[in-house]
């Protein structure tokens, strides 16, 4: 099983009939990441598609276990080496990067892309950096894997990058160990490590979750500045809508391993169409809200990814589950649809809900928006 996902289409650029090479910089088509376990098949990601162009930022939002991190590891090809948890993942679908399909590419080819064209910033920089090697060595190592340079040059490059990400006295700090850095400095060093090869795609997996609030904003600013400078595409993965609201060009809301809403950040933020997105917005603390008003949490807990309910996965937690939905069969999963309301740039606003668009627009404008 593992072999089939790994090498099945090794000699062909792609398999399946619907596949044509993508013209987008990054295109993910019907990505599925399944983990066979003793209890059953865990469908961490179950049919995810999106595109991303250079210089743009895509925010992927969802709660723990919605499949956002697994998606990024799939793009990195990290499912091929090592294991997440106890079992190897089974992947299907297509991931096109710059005209190359990654899932069917061989491991060494993908490895060469890792760290050079696709780089990743991880959530907790303390555990994500090796405790026994100096920060400088770890950055230099990332540079030397992909560039034939001597240690001295790589070290210079590391100092340069540390300087660029705003670490004071970089020529001294280059010899420090990760535990000698503060949390924010560590995340800066992590970013330096990710950017050392000028990657075209940068995946930031909850880059600010482990940091103080004051440091969060600095790190986000840094990522934004660097994106402008390097022109990379950025995927920002977070459970916090506030983090991506001002950074992302486009937002993708994930629930139970699937996309439930996708659109420009502006649309998703100001005219959200999915009850789960409403829940996310409602549970966000805001300074301009009356103190007497309570946050509105999303009730219940995320679905088990082994037995995703048939029909809408959000149904058990949806406050509007009882709203009449015409002649929709409840056991059918709602598909992503976008009313013909493309924005000026041709972007469309997708959502997956059984309620009619009119009904949802009404609920949002009349019931939800005034409370936020």
């Amino acid at each position: 099983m593992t072999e089939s996902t790994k090498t099945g289409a090794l000699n062909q650029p792609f398999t399946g009939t619907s596949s044509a090479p993508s013209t987008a910089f990054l295109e993910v088509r019907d990505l599925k990441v399944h983990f066979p376990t003793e209890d059953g098949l865990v469908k961490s990601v179950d049919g995810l598609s999106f595109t991303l162009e250079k210089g743009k930022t895509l925010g992927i939002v969802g709660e723990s276990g919605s499949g956002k991190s697994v998606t990024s590891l799939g793009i990195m090809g990290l499912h091929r080496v090592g294991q997440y948890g106890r079992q190897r993942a089974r992947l299907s679908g297509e991931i096109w990067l710059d005209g190359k399909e990654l899932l069917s590419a061989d491991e060494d080819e993908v490895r060469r892309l890792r760290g050079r064209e696709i780089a990743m910033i991880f959530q907790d920089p303390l555990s994500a950096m090796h405790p026994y090697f100096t920060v400088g060595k770890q950055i230099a190592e990332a540079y030397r894997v992909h560039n034939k340079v001597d240690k001295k040059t790589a070290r210079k490059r590391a100092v340069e990058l540390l300087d660029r990400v705003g670490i004071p006295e970089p020529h001294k700090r280059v010899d420090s160990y990760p535990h000698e850095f503060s949390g924010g400095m560590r995340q800066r060093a992590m970013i330096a490590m990710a950017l050392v090869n000028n990657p075209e795609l940068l995946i930031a997996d909850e880059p600010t979750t482990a940091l103080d609030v004051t440091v969060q904003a600095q790190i986000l600013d840094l990522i934004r500045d660097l994106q402008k400078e390097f022109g990379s595409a950025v995927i920002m993965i977070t459970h916090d809508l506030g983090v991506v609201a001002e950074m992302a060009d486009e937002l993708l809301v994930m629930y139970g391993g699937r996309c439930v809403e996708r659109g420009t950040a502006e649309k998703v933020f100001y005219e959200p169409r999915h009850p789960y997105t409403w829940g996310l917005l409602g549970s966000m603390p805001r300074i301009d809200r009356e103190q007497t008003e309570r946050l509105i949490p999303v009730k219940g807990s995320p679905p088990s990814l082994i037995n995703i309910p048939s029909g809408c996965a959000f149904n058990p937690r949806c406050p509007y589950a009882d709203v009449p939905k015409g002649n929709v069969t409840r056991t059918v999963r709602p598909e992503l649809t976008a009313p013909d309301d493309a924005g000026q740039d041709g972007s469309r606003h997708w959502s997956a809900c059984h309620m009619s668009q009119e009904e949802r627009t009404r609920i949002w404008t009349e019931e939800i928006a005034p409370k936020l």
Partner: protein
Amino acid sequence: MLAYFIRRIFSVIVMLLVISLVTFGIFFLFPKMIGTDPALYFVGKQSDPIAIEGIRQKMGLDDPILVQFGKFVVGLVAGRTYANGPDVTQCAAPCFGYSFKTEQEVWPLLLDWLPVTLSLALGAVVLWVIGGVATGVISALKRGTVLDRSAMGIALAGVSLPIYFTGMLVIAVFSDQLGWFGRPDATFAEDPGRWFNGMILPWVSLAFLYAAMYARLTRATMLEVLNEDYIRTARAKGLTEPVVIGKHAMRSTMTPILTVLGLDLGALMGGAVLTEYTFSLHGLGYSAVRAISEHDLPVILGITLISAFFVVAANLIVDLMYAVIDPRVRLS
């Protein structure tokens, strides 16, 4: 750092003193408890009372125990003169006293036995570290496969089988039946080839036991390390698997292994009793057993102190090594 080092050395000395006091107390009170006179051990049962009294005077056996201990410690550092009138015996430092049995000085005896034990321990350690760690790493990387299961099965057997069983088995098969290897019956100085050939079975038997433990430890640690975030980071950088495993994962895996290794080696250098006995290697362990059966208290005391010294020194070295291996550890 230097202050720490000095403090640790000092505490090592104190610890050795305490260990020797306790041992000294036990072993020199023991004859009194069973109602014999230590002097009798020196002169034999048929001796006349005058000779016994002479020995008692000469060895200072009538002094209070603490005075005797004080003289013993001074003897360790500065040597000691036993005298009873004109009967004077000089015992050079470090003076561990005289064997009751052979009336030889203990220290030269220890120096005879020590190389045997050291060569057994050091030869075995090379084998078991290479074998155990390699097996553990491969098992971890191939987790759940037939290879892993059989390696861990053998390791379990290795941990459970006592050395006198495996030792006897390999002697019966490889020495008696096949005649591939001899018995350890020559020292290195006498005949290096013969010595090496004779040491192979003891090395392998002892190493098998430890390799089994190290394989299990390595496998468990490696599996834990492979789940660490920084291993994922290493892969995300595009490093090849050999670098990820050999450099990043191994570096962390080796820390607990080196700790255990230091302590095991320290303990083994004080004598691998069962192995030495099984293969009739006259090292510290073998001699300790013999000394115990012969109630040769000065020898027992000497071996105990040497063993304690190795264990305590190994502990110190392990602690110092930590600071080198793990930059997060500050010595203070």
